[in-house]
C-alpha cells in the first residue's frame, strides 16, 4: 500500500472517495432481487397464498450418465430466490417498445433520474463507526442533503408522466408532484426537530448523539431518538412521509392501478420499467436506513454494553446491523402495504397538510422545550414537562375533533348513495300507489 501513499494528496482523496462510494453502493445495490423476493413471499404469507417458491429448484436425474455420481438424485432448493433473477433477465431480453409521439429524451431521462436519486440518497449515511469507509461524504449538511435529493425524486415521475404522451401517465405525474411537495414539508420539519435535539446536521453526529445512556439515566439502553417522546412522534411522521415519498401503498396514488392503469409508468416496458422498479426498491431500502440512522441509532446494537463497542466500530458488522435495520423497515413497508387500503386523494392531502404538518411543527416547538428544560432542570423534569405538553396537545386535538364531528355530517361507509334515502322511500311508496 506504499504506492498509494506516494501519490498526490488530491488523487489520494479522489481515490478514497471513489472507494467509499463503491462500498456504499454495494449494500444498496446487491439486495434488490432478494428484496423483491422477500416482498412477494411475505405478502403472499400475509394474504394466505404461497407465492414464488419453485424457481431455481433443480432435481438431478438419478439414472442419466451425464450427471456425476455425487449429484445423482439430489435436489437443490433455492426457495424461489431465482424468480427475481429470471424476471430481470426477461426484462432485459424483451422487445424494447417506445410509443410513438413520445418526447424521446425525457422518456429515457426519467428512469435515469429515479435511479440517480435512489443511488445518491445514501451518501451521508454512516454504515459503521469506522470513518475511513463510510459515509461517502461526512458533510455538515447531511440531513439537508437527504431532503434535497429525495425532493429531486419528483422529477422522475413528473417527466415520465409528461413524456409518455398518455392521459393516464400525465395524471399520475400530476398526482406525484403534488403528493411529493406536500409530504416533503412534514418530513423536513420532523427531521428538523431531530436536528434541534442533536445540535448538528451531520449524520455521524446524529448517530454519536444517540450512543449515551437513555435520558442520561437508564444505563442499559441507548439514547435512541425513537425512545424519547418527541423522537417517537417525529419517527411516526417521518415513517408516513417516507412511504409517501417512495410512492408505496397506501400512498401509491401516482400509480393507482384501478384508476390510472399504471400511472406514470404506463407506457414503460423492459429495461426502463426495470429501472423504475429497481429504483423504487433501492429507495425503500435507503429510506429505511435513513430512518434507522436518525431514529434507531444507526449501526448501534439495541442493548448498551461495553462488549459490543468493538463490534459497533467494525465496518462489516456495522453494515450487517444497518442491513438488518433496513430489512426491519422493509418489513414494515410490506406489512403496511398488506394492511391499509389506498387513500382517496382528498384524504391524502388532508393527512399531509392538516394533520402531519401541524403536528410536526408543534413537535418542533416541544423539542425546543425539551432542550430548554433539560439544560435548566435535568432530564426527569424535561420528561415530565414534555409529557404535560403532549397531554395538553391530545386534549386540544380531542376538543377540535369533537367540534368537527358536530359540524360535519358523518358518513357510515365509503360507498355513495346515488339517491338520498328519503327520496327512495317516497318513490317506493309512489310505485306502490301506481302499480295496482
Amino acid at each position: 500500500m506504499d504506492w498509494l501513499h506516494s501519490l498526490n494528496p488530491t488523487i489520494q482523496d479522489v481515490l478514497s472517495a471513489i472507494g467509499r462510494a463503491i462500498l456504499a453502493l454495494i449494500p444498496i445495490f446487491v439486495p434488490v432481487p432478494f428484496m423483491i423476493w422477500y416482498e412477494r413471499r411475505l405478502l403472499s404469507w400475509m394474504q394466505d397464498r404461497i407465492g414464488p417458491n419453485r424457481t431455481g429448484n433443480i432435481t438431478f436425474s438419478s439414472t442419466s450418465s451425464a450427471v456425476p455420481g455425487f449429484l445423482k438424485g439430489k435436489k437443490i432448493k433455492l426457495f424461489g430466490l431465482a424468480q427475481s433473477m429470471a424476471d430481470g433477465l426477461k426484462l432485459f431480453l424483451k422487445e424494447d417498445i417506445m410509443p410513438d409521439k413520445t418526447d424521446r429524451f425525457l422518456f429515457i431521462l426519467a428512469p435515469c433520474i429515479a435511479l440517480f436519486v435512489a443511488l445518491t440518497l445514501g451518501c451521508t449515511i454512516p454504515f459503521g463507526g469506522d470513518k475511513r469507509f463510510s459515509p461517502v461524504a461526512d458533510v455538515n449538511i447531511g440531513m439537508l442533503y437527504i431532503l434535497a435529493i429525495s425532493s429531486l425524486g419528483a422529477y422522475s415521475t413528473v417527466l415520465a408522466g409528461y413524456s409518455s404522451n398518455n392521459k393516464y401517465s400525465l395524471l399520475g405525474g400530476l398526482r406525484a408532484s403534488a403528493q411529493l411537495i406536500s409530504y416533503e414539508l412534514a418530513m423536513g420539519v420532523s427531521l428538523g426537530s431531530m436536528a434541534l435535539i442533536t445540535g448538528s446536521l451531520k449524520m455521524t453526529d446524529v448517530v454519536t448523539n444517540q450512543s449515551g445512556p437513555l435520558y442520561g439515566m437508564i444505563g442499559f439502553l441507548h439514547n435512541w431518538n425513537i425512545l424519547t417522546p418527541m423522537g417517537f412522534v417525529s419517527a411516526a411522521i417521518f415513517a408516513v412521509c417516507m412511504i409517501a415519498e417512495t410512492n408505496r401503498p397506501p400512498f401509491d396514488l401516482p400509480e393507482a392501478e384501478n384508476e390510472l392503469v399504471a400511472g406514470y409508468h404506463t407506457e414503460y416496458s423492459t429495461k426502463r420499467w426495470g429501472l423504475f422498479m429497481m429504483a423504487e426498491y433501492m429507495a425503500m431500502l435507503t429510506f429505511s436506513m435513513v430512518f434507522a440512522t436518525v431514529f434507531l441509532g444507526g449501526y448501534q446494537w439495541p442493548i448498551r454494553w461495553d462488549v459490543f463497542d468493538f463490534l459497533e466500530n467494525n465496518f462489516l458488522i456495522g453494515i450487517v446491523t444497518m442491513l438488518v435495520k433496513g430489512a426491519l423497515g422493509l418489513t414494515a413497508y410490506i406489512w403496511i402495504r398488506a394492511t391499509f387500503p389506498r387513500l382517496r386523494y382528498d384524504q391524502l392531502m388532508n393527512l399531509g397538510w392538516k394533520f402531519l404538518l401541524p403536528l410536526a411543527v408543534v413537535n418542533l416547538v416541544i423539542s425546543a422545550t425539551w432542550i430548554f428544560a433539560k439544560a435548566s432542570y435535568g432530564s426527569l423534569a424535561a420528561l415530565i414537562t414534555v409529557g404535560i405538553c403532549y397531554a395538553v396537545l391530545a386534549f386540544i386535538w380531542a376538543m377540535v375533533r369533537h367540534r368537527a364531528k358536530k359540524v360535519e355530517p358523518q358518513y357510515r361507509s365509503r360507498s355513495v348513495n346515488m339517491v338520498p334515502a328519503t327520496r327512495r322511500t317516497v318513490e317506493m311508496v309512489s310505485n306502490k300507489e301506481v302499480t295496482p
Partner: protein
Amino acid sequence: MMLAGPAALATVGVVASKSAVRSALCLVFNFFILAFLYFSLSMEMIGITQIMVYAGAIMVLFMFVIMLLNPKLIDEKKDYKLPIGLLFGLALFMLLGSQILPKLMTANVPAMEYEVGSPKLVGEALFTTYVFPFEVVSLLLLVGVVGSVFLAKRRTP
C-alpha cells in the same frame, strides 16, 4: 470554470427551447450547477438550500402548473421582438461588462477552506443580526401562501 460552460448553455436553453417543460428542465439543470458553484465557493448551506428550494420545490411547482394547464405551444411569431430583444440584451451585456469586468480581472477567489457557509454560522447570523428581516420574510411567505390559496380557490356562487 468547468461548471460555468454547462450553466451558460442551460441558461440559453431556458430561453430558446420551444416547449415549456424543456425550458423548465434546463432551468433545473442550471440551478443544480449553480448549487455546485456555491459548493465551490464553500457555501454548502446555501448550495443545499438552493437544491432544496429551487430544484426541489419551486421548479416542481412550475412543472405542476405547466402540466395542469398544458398550454398549446404558443407559436412564437417572428416579429420585431426577437431582434430588438437580442440587440437590447447584447447592449446590456456590453454595458455591464465594460463597467464591471476590467476592475475584477486581477481578483482571484482564493481556494481555501473557510467556514462562513457552514450551517452553524448561517443559523447564528439568521437569528441574531438578521432576526427582524427573517421574521418579515416569514410574514411575507405567509401572505404569499394565503394569497395563492385565495387565487386558486374555485369561487362557487
